[in-house]
């Protein structure tokens, strides 16, 4: 379980970083999204991975050790919302940049035809 999660986070962030360094804006957006997915999974995993353990207090469940940590779940929710909003905003800026400059390069120019 741990190794699968670690590999997933690693692959997501590695592909995200590679895409982040690509020249076109759309690739950068996808790269940033992949990085944020990786980061979200990472936040989720810092509470320890548990299956079927409740995060909210329940009289039927015994000691504190039987619960999963609820805080990373709250943190990841906040992070997801913020990342979603930022990606939407970045897409708008991407479209504005495309409309104003006529090219979707981040920092370069279209090659001569």
């Amino acid at each position, binding site marked *: 379980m741990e190794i699968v999660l670690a590999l997933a986070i690693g692959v997501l962030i590695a592909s995200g970083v590679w895409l*982040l360094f690509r020249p076109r*804006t759309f690739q*950068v957006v996808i790269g*940033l999204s992949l*990085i*944020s997915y990786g*980061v979200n999974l*990472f*936040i989720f995993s*810092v*509470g*320890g991975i548990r299956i079927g353990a409740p995060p909210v207090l329940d009289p039927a469940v015994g*000691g*504190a*050790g039987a*619960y999963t*940590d609820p*805080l*990373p779940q709250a*943190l990841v929710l*906040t*992070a997801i919302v*913020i990342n979603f*909003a*930022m990606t939407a*905003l*970045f897409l708008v*800026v*991407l*479209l*504005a*940049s495309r*409309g*104003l*400059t006529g090219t979707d390069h*981040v*920092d370069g120019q279209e090659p001569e035809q």
Partner: protein
Amino acid sequence: MNGLLTHLIVAPIVLPLGAAALVMMIEERPLRIAVSFATVTALLLVSATLLLSVAAPDASAAAVYRIGDWPAPFGIVLVLDRLSAMMVALASTLGLATLVFSLARWDRAGPRFHALFLLLLAGLNGAFLTGDLFNLFVFFEVLLAASYGLVLHGSGAARVKAGLHYIAVNLGASSLFLLGVSAIYGVAGTLNMADLAGRLPELSGAQRTLFEIGCAVLGVAFLIKAGIWPLGFWLPPTYSASSAPAAAMFAIMTKVGVYAVLRVTFLFFGPETGDAAGFASPLLLFGGALTIAMSAAGMLAARTFSRIAGFSILISSGAVLAVVGAGGGRALSGALYYMISSTFAVAAFFLLVELLNRARGTTAPASPPPVFEDEYRDPYEDGSPSDEVGVVIPAAIALISGGFILCALLLAGLPPLSGFVGKFAMMAGLSEQATAADWVLIALLTLSSFTAVVALLRIGIESIWASKESVTPRVRGVEFVAIAGLLAACVIMTVNGAAVFRFTDDTVAWLSRPQDYIGAVLGGDVPPAPANETSR
């Protein structure tokens, strides 16, 4: 502070947040201006009250506000101490001056200027006041989201392109921030800064290493915001592309990064923390010194006013970071003074650059084609009633040149203004410690003054004395009032230097006693670790 006054601590966040929502719903421009002007003025008064409440000799050094009255390590707390009160006051003063300047024309260039501006202030104040690392992230995002809007304010190809880079860099930095915060949570099981600092001695071995890795990742995120070399490459292009009021307001955004570094360094890695002491000091020292050197070189290469202003922001945050790395003490007190003074000076310079460019006749951008069906307008040809066009001040050129000279003195750190006092205090503090690194830092500070003089002299002669196509700029009274206010703040800081230094000395003394901060936030007793922590 008791009774109702305690609730004043949350006002710097709630006030602009509420006003931003209100301003969104108002169509009429005069009413919009009235709301945001009243809010920012109230903010200034509130921050002055807060500053006085912590600066009084008999006052308790920190006031803690529990949001929702949850006890400290479980709920989120706002902590008002000398450092955060000083930063909130700095942001409010800068906010008022910038808002006054923008009333001349810039607030009409885009539809949501006032709302974005107030949200930026809310995010800044929240970041300064919060005592929780994740909450710090949230407020960073609030202020960044507002700043993305302000960078694009006024539209145009240059701004959109610079804004695209700025947003991409900061989204990457935010991911690093989250990684760092969650790694720290994974190790320590808390995100309250005081609680973290209190639990630090319990960590050892692999946990300790993981914690330091988390702090290092977090530190990189802060340093990207603070603009340390080589992570500050995004700053000069972005700031020089954005509109004058936005750029002036951004002068304090690098200081948020510096503030976060100061806070975390002194709480987690202060002199009292045993073997963890000075964890990032060498890096901050060399990074800060390199930032000063590289920005001084960049300043020499810069050919426009706004790029020079951008590099002087980098120099000021580099100087503060290097002094933090060099060990603090009396030099840090000088660095805090220098930080306040240079923030005002750079902001005044950014505002002045707008008028200088107008005098050079170089700010007539072709009206950008609208990208979206929105109410974007070119601020230079707004269709406002002509009775709002204020008087053309005959002595405008003389006033602009005078302002330029004052800004140059402040930025270069020449006597008699506060730039010199701050730099001198830093050098005096460093020469007391007198290690080789301190002398190098003193040499670099001197060098940066020299390059600032050369760069500003050259561009001043080129564009004010020897300019052929000089036009008498149309300048409105409010624009002069804003710049004069910021410069007057620097003059007041010079005249009342002893009082300011007493305050910064106390701030440094307070920062180097993290035990008091922890005691104030947690109410003296650190709660026992939760039972499930050992089961991980």
